[in-house]
Structures are given as C-alpha cells and as structure tokens.
C-alpha cells in the first residue's frame, strides 16, 4: 500500500539527512561485531552470504564459534550444517541445531530441508573441511535453488568454504589470516583483532537474481 505524501516526504527527508543509515529490517545481525560492522549491520536477509577462508588454519572455527555464541547472547536459534562432521563444541550451545553430515550430498539435502522449513533465522553451511573434489561436483543450479527458497521465506544462509563456490551469493567475504603457533595460548579477542575480513564481491539484487 503506498504511503501518504507526508510519509513519503518524511522518508525522503530522513534519507537525505542520514544517508549512512541502512534499511536495518533487511539485515539479520549475527551479533558478532566484526562481521556485522563490515556488512553494515548484519547478513542480508533473503540471500546467501559466502565466507571464504583459504588457509587451513585461518580462524574459521573461531568465526563459527563467535557467531554461534553471539546468536546465543541474543537468544536466537541457529542451525549449523556441518559438511564433514568436524565441529568441536567447546561449551554447551542450547540454541544450536547441529546437523552432522558425512559428505556434501547429505549437507545439501539437509540445507534444502532447513531452508524450506524457514523456522530458523540463520543457517550456516560449513564446507571448510570438505575436499575440493567433492565440492566441485555441486551443480551451480543448487545455489540458485537455495537462493529462490531464501528469497521467499526471508531467512539467511552463510556458507563457509575454502574457495569461491556459491555462484548466487549476494556478498562474498574473505578471511585471509594465518594462525601462529603462539595463538594456541592467546586470548581469543587478541586473535580476532588480527583478522582481516574483507568484502571481495557484492552483487546487486537484480544481478544475482538473473545471473
């Protein structure tokens, strides 16, 4: 329903006055400030965000734990589709739904079920430990299918991979960091300070819809 002329004028005025303010209702905050601040408030709702972590020991598990913990702090449920059953839970996560898949095919089916269910605000698909051979067999159409589902139910999917994989991702973020051996004894916030998160690709809505 179109707004009244006064409302439209007010919106226009506010947009001009505060151009830095984003439409926050289109974002799903993870609660983890390095990621949220990079993305301007959170992961975009109704789209896929791809986190690329090329190094073997780069801090991907830290990111995963930080997001899950931040979601818990905000009493939000989160689903982790673990492509290689490699997640190590260091503490109890009562609001984490962990799906322990043995291979990529299982993980894709589980993701499909969860996205169609649309009950959980954030699903994380972790393919960091899966082999490239397995991942290369995923048809490109799979990601577009996921994109269509997410668009409809306005949920959010975050994928974690070692290489760019998700063709329909609206935002691709890269984490280029190499853990040092001394980091094993460092406080986690100190390690996170050294992370370099960077947006490597951002697609406009129409671009990924009709790509």
């Amino acid at each position, binding site marked *: 329903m179109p707004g009244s002329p006064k409302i439209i004028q007010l919106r226009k005025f506010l947009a001009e006055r505060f151009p830095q303010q984003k439409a926050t209702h289109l974002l799903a905050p993870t609660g983890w400030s390095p990621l949220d601040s990079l993305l301007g408030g959170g992961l975009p709702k109704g789209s896929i965000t791809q986190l690329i972590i090329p190094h073997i*020991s780069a801090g991907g598990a830290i990111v995963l734990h930080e997001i899950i913990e931040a979601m818990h*702090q905000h009493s939000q449920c989160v689903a982790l589709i673990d492509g290689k059953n490699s997640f190590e*839970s260091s503490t109890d996560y009562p609001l984490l739904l962990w799906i322990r898949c043995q291979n990529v095919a299982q993980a894709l089916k589980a993701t499909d079920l969860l996205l169609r269910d649309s009950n959980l605000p954030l699903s994380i698909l972790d393919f960091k*430990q899966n082999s490239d051979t397995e991942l290369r067999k995923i048809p490109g159409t799979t990601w577009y299918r996921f994109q269509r589902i997410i668009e409809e139910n306005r949920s959010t999917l975050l994928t974690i991979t070692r290489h760019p994989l998700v063709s329909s991702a609206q935002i691709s973020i890269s984490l280029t960091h190499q853990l040092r051996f001394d980091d*094993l*004894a460092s406080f986690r916030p100190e390690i996170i300070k050294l992370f370099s998160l960077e947006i490597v690709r951002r697609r406009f809505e129409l671009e990924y819809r009709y790509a």
Partner: protein
Amino acid sequence: MPKIETSCFTVIYIPFYFLQCAHQKRLLQRVENAYASSRQLSLDVTVEDHYSDSFSSSVFAKTCTDIPAALLDDDGIHVIELNLAAEEAGIQPGASTSQAIARAPELVLYTRALTHERQLQDVLLQLAYSYSPFIENSAPGVCTIDITKTRNQQNGLRKLLAQLRAVGLKAQAGIGPNPEIALQAAKIADPVLEISHDCNLLQSLPLESLDPSPFLLDILKSWGVRTLGALTRLPRDEIGQRLGLEGLSLWDRAGGRSTKVLQFVQPSETFEESIDFEQRLETLEPLLFILRRFLERLSLRIESVYLLIAELHLVLILENGEKIVRSLQIPAPTRDVEVLYGTAVQYLETLHTTAPVTSFHLEIKPSKPDGHQFDLFQGKLRDPNRFFQTLARLAALVGTEGVGIPQQINTHRPDSLRIQTPEFDWSWHSVKNTSRPKIGPGLRRYRPGIIASVELDKDKPVSVQSDLISGKILEARGPWNLSGNWWDRARWEIREWDVVLEDGGIYRLAQGLSQWEVVGVYD
C-alpha cells in the same frame, strides 16, 4: 413472584441410524475399491475428488431416500431396517432378502457396521454435550437433551445438526415440553421442529410413531384408532381397564403427559476411528484418504469439547496378523487437519509392511490448550509442528545421532558429547552469559581420527605420515597427558601433541594405547 421455568427438551434423532452407519462404511470401502480398480486398470483416477464432497451429503441423500435401501441382520438373511423408498416399494421389516429384491430389484443391501454404530453414537453424544451438559443416551441414533436453561435454542440446534452433517450423519431435531413430544417432533422435523402439548401436528401422528407392541396395536386398530389424537379422545380410565398398564402408558405418551426422567450421561472421552477393509490394502493412497477423513471427523469432535490433539495413535493390522502400533507426538497440540495429516503421512510414507493392511485404527489423545508467555526479544519458531517434521526428516537423512543440540558430557575424555533432541520449547531457552575467558582457536575434529605414523626424536614428534597430512613437523608442543576410567575396563589414556606442519596448518596429534592419530586441525 418468582418466575417458574417451564421444562424444555430436545431430541436429536438420526433417521435410519443403522442404515446411515452401514452406508458410511460402504462409502469408505468404495474409495478403497476405487483405488484398487484404478490401480489395476492403470488409469489416472482422482478418487478423492469424486468422493470427498459427496461423502456425506449428496451420495447419502440419494442412496438413503431415492434408491431403496435395506439393512440386513447379522446373518444377512432378513431385512431389519428400510429407508422410505424401500418402504414405498412394499418391503416390510422382517422380509427375507429374496422377497425384498423381488419387490425392488434395484434394492441396495447393507450389512450392519457395528464399529461404526458405536463410534458414531459417541460422536453424537460428544457433539450434543457441547450444546448442553444434560444429555441422555436414549437409543442408537437418539439423544435427548434438557435445554430448559439453554438460550438461543434453534440456532444452537442448527449448528449441532450441521456438525453432525459434517461427520456424515443426517439428523433432525425436535423441541418439546417433555422428551416424548420432543422425540415425536424430531421424527417429523425438517430439520428442526418445535411443538407444544396441544399441537394438532402431534394429534395427527399415527400410532406406530410410539412403537406400541404389535398386540396392542392390533387391538387399537380393530377399534378404529389410528392416530394419537384418536387415542387421547378415548377416556383414560376406560383404556386402563381394558388394556392395562401398557395401555395407560401409551395413552399418556400420546397425550404428551409422560413423566420420563432423563438419565444423564457423560460422553465417552475416547476419540477413535477404525475400519476393517474388505479388500486388503497394498498401496498407501486409499489409507491416506481414509486417514484424512478420520482426522477431519476427530478434529471436529475435539473442537466440540474445546481441546487440542496432542498425540496420534495409529494401529495397522496386517494380513499375516502382525500389528503395527505407532504413537506420533504433536509438538504443538493443534486441531489443524493439515498439520496432523502431514505428521501421520510422514510416518506412513516411510513405513514398509510385510503384508497388506486389513485394518486401520486411529485414536487421538486430547490435550488442553497450552498457554505460553511469549518473550518479546527471543527468537521463536514460526511453525513448531513444521519444524519438528523437518527434524524428523533430518534424522532420517543423517541419523538420530546426527541432528540435535550438542551437550558436553562430564568427562575429560576428548570429543565426548551427546546429542539431545530439541524439546518443543527449545527456542525459548534462556542463555546464561558466561564470562569464562576464551583461549586459542577452535578445533575442527576429524571423526574418526586419521591413523598416522609419527617419527619421534627424543620422544618428540618430528615428522608425520598419514592419508591426510604428511611432512616434517616444524614445531611441536606436548605431550598433554589425559587419562580416565582407570578404575574399570573402559580405561583410556591419550597423549596429545600440537604440531605445525610445513603447509602452515596447526594440527593435533594423539597417541593412544596402540597407535597415533591426527585428531583435528586448529582453525
């Protein structure tokens, strides 16, 4: 001066009750046969479309009024109940099957459906109880209700009749100052009729409407008495002298002066439906059709008592005598047929039986509506029932141990955790803010660990060979000795090392009692 309340009763009367029950059973079986024949002929027949709407209305109306229909006794020899068309064709109750067919070749014969009769009587009482708590189980297909204190009687009755219609029963209701008049009114109602003591309509009813004994009826007819009005015009004392107590009782009933006291009952609190199939079922479709029909009926019944459905109890009896029993919990109790149907279908679709199904029984466990205090800032499941269906599908995909909430076990043994299935109120779990310092990166664990051969130099690993990683170890820290259960046979002992390889990866190696393993990578 205090207001004197006049008594008022209503009778819900289901004409041709046994015939209607038998007809309901026949319709369900017709669906089953239609599925069987459609399968044999390989035709794409949408049976549900044909039968869903007509199930309780038009087919019934046609069969029970236009087409002569008769109900046979348990032996299948004699007619015990007839519809109007059969009576008009000249068939009398008690006639043999051959006599009846000779009078009306198009006669449809039914056998009694005892299970359906019992279940539908339960339905009648449960729905009537939602209208008034003062109900009497007067006879099969007849329920008397004291509505003296009930307001808006006619509207309530019409709603009740519509509910009965929805479960496939065509009923009529009569309202009168005593149960007898109400019953007589119900028998001629269309669909609701209210009559009083001096109503001419009551006077003109035939004597047969009171079901007198054949002996008494013969005597009265020989006197030329054929209607209730004709009987009440005779002096009561004279009737008593000549016909005794039975005659007096009949006179009182005919005059609307019976003083029957209702015997109130509580309706049964079991909600169940069952069917024995004439043809054994080998495919799922007919069973699903019947399941939906049962759920619709049960949902209506449960709605009348303001409850919700919390559990579906399914029983399938197979041809070889095997009995499959399954209880399906509904996470968020509901009356929504689609949700209940989806839950049951999800189970039935994965069910493999060793023999065809011969009988199906469905019972539901009711529950009171649950109240939840929703928290403004907590994330809730949008549709809990759908979520738990998805959980079941995920469990079918990855196993029950493959999906759930990870929980730590109180032990120092690495990788010791249990997977807990989320409860219904899972998403409302409050999370305590722990301020424990977090040290080091997380571990990504290889499950199971990858067997490795490790070369040691002065008890320190210097190189590793495995299917996953191989190479020279640049740096190693350890060992971290862990052990437990030394007091029993489950004794375990592990020495762990953290190592950095040439590829930059930081790995954890573990030396067990017999071998080395790469157990994870720090990330």
